[in-house]
């Protein structure tokens, strides 16, 4: 018995070596698998089960916050594909989110309302449409973006937000204008209203559950959508398209030399990313009553960048973690207001909790870039490495 297997029960030692060495991959297929180790499979399963059970444990207001976090996460995943994988910076995602939102709101809007609406409230119709229209707009903008690199791209996409804000504010027949606003899309799945409190218990044979509140239902809808979008993005990331993206990110000239079609791949990256942003925009505002065109401003774009950045550039799980941290920040800052002296929750005070919230956005950006550029994922991998080699530090 070798040193390595000493102490391991005979039952385990007889198994194939891969089961005890999660990082040993004996085939390309297992290396590229979605969940390429047993620990990851169990962990993802556990997280999903816990997430699905949360509506039974948390208050409705918390669920609302988390549902918003899921919508944010979809947008952050989209920006992650563009910035983290393909290395193209975009400060314009608020504009694409707006395009998606108005597409969805018009399709599901009241046909007799003051602004344009077609009354198709099925989410399976308006959500793909929102993504598609935003993706097309992204692809239209992309030719300009593919000519530019780095900070020039950041500035031109920033300009896009201002042009978009102007457009949304003036196009009153679609957006309702700044004074009226627009009602968000109605969430209806197979004819069942998800964004209204359930009236009767749902029964499936002898089993009967509910009725659920609208916050519980919306949370589950968002969670399922988040999982779908995240898996899709992960699959893009590990396909040939994703490899082309990372090649462009690492060195675009080198990528061009080895045969990556730069214009095409950058356009694809922009289209996918804006499609995600469009879906996020359509979903995020489903929990509010009325949306003003100036919601889609530069700050929303910056928020998306912050989510990607504090999550950890280049990983889908990082985008999700970052999005939830940002979504929970209002809660964190009001908690800080309780804990810290001088900080109050009264809006008339200079040092109040909403100020804290914005200052925290800034501090998070600066802190993570200075001390942990790999973001939350970086912190996690440090913790994991520390335990892997425990009790040795290397």
């Amino acid at each position, binding site marked *: 018995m070798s040193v390595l297997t000493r102490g391991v029960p005979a039952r385990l030692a007889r198994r194939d070596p891969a089961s005890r060495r999660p990082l040993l991959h004996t085939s390309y297929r297992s290396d590229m698998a979605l969940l390429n180790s047993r620990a990851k499979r169990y962990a993802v399963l556990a997280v999903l089960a816990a997430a699905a059970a949360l509506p039974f444990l948390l208050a409705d207001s918390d669920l609302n916050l988390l549902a918003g976090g899921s919508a944010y996460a979809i947008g952050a995943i989209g920006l992650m594909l563009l910035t983290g994988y393909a290395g193209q910076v975009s400060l314009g995602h608020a504009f694409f989110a707006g395009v998606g939102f108005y597409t969805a709101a018009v399709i599901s809007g009241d046909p007799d309302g003051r602004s344009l609406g077609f009354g198709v409230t099925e989410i399976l119709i308006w959500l793909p449409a929102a993504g598609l229209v935003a993706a097309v707009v992204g692809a239209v903008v992309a030719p300009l973006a593919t000519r530019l690199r780095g900070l020039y791209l950041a500035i*031109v996409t920033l*300009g896009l937000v*201002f*042009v978009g804000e*102007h457009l949304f504010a003036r196009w009153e027949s679609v957006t309702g204008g700044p004074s009226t606003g627009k009602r968000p899309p109605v969430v209806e799945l197979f004819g069942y209203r998800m964004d209204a409190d359930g009236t009767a218990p749902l029964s499936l044979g002898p089993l009967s559950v509910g009725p659920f509140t609208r916050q519980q239902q919306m949370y589950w809808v968002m969670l399922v959508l988040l999982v779908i979008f995240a898996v899709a993005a992960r699959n893009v990331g590990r396909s040939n398209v994703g490899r082309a993206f990372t090649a462009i990110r690492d060195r675009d000239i080198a990528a061009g030399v080895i045969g990556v079609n730069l214009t095409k791949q950058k356009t694809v990256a922009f289209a996918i990313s804006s499609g995600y942003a469009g879906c996020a925009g359509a979903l995020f505002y489903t929990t509010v009553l009325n949306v003003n065109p100036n919601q889609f401003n530069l700050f929303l774009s910056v928020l998306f960048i912050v989510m990607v950045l504090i999550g950890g550039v280049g990983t889908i799980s990082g985008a999700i973690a970052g999005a939830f941290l940002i979504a929970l920040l209002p809660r964190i800052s009001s908690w800080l207001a309780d804990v810290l002296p001088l900080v109050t929750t009264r809006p*008339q005070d200079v*040092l109040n909790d909403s100020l804290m919230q*914005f200052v925290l*956005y800034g501090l998070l950006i600066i802190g993570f*870039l200075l001390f942990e550029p790999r973001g939350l994922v970086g912190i996690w991998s440090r913790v994991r490495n520390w335990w892997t080699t425990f009790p040795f530090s290397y």
Partner: protein
Amino acid sequence: MTTFLAAIADGLGRGSVYALIALGFVIIYKSSRVISFAQPGFMIAGVVLVTYLVEIPGLGFFGAMALGAGLIALLGLGVERSVIRPMIGRPVFAIAIITIGLDIILRTVAHAYIGPLVRHVEDPWGREMLTVGTLRMEQRHLAAVITATVLVGLLFLFFRYTRMGLAMRAVAEDQEAALAQGVSVGAVFAVSWALAAGLAAVAGSFAAAGVSVDNTFWPIALYALPVIILGGLDSLPGAVLAGVVIGVLRSLADNYPDALSWLGSNPSVIVPWLVMVLVLVVRPYGLFGTPEVERV
């Protein structure tokens, strides 16, 4: 014709404000190849500080502006030393994002000090007009033009004749060569951040002359982005000229809204951005900028 001349005069006033902010962007870009998105934050912080300083008796608008610009320059110095200096050697994009974080903090704190009401810089001009024959120009715009001209002249002398100016030009030319010659690159970065912050504060004070300062004041500073793209990211004369051009274009759009009616009401808000997109398509390095050469 009178409308046209008035629009030009108005544009010159606005343009000199844009030019001053844009100069800050360019000075930072030349020294460290980073576009600092913190300029709007420094500007609004400067303006709010000035609105408080003018309340000191005997200081007056110009005194408050000079003092405010000095204090904001010190703030810029501190920010550079504490947040930007540790980032040297990291990707420029990371530094640009840090400046966005700075901007959020500066703006939030400044807005908190505006309070529930609007504030004023108590400038001596208000909306008074100066009339020469048929030509009418707002006095505040004339003051902005004169101040901007003086400051640009001083900057020129600074870059041309002082040791620090020479060091800054050397760093802009070639950072490593300058370092090898004994130029303190760190000091150059610090001075460029201080200059940029101070210029933003002065520009903000003139932008606030005759109007009130509230939470929607800060986007004025963002018009400096189309300006630096038009003028070229690394060209100081370009920033001045393009600032005036963008200012005049905005005024023309305000005065002739019928010609731009297809852009909806109030087209002057997006004219600079459209100009910027046009420039980027035709000539991405701007009018006077250095074309970017990619070495493999």
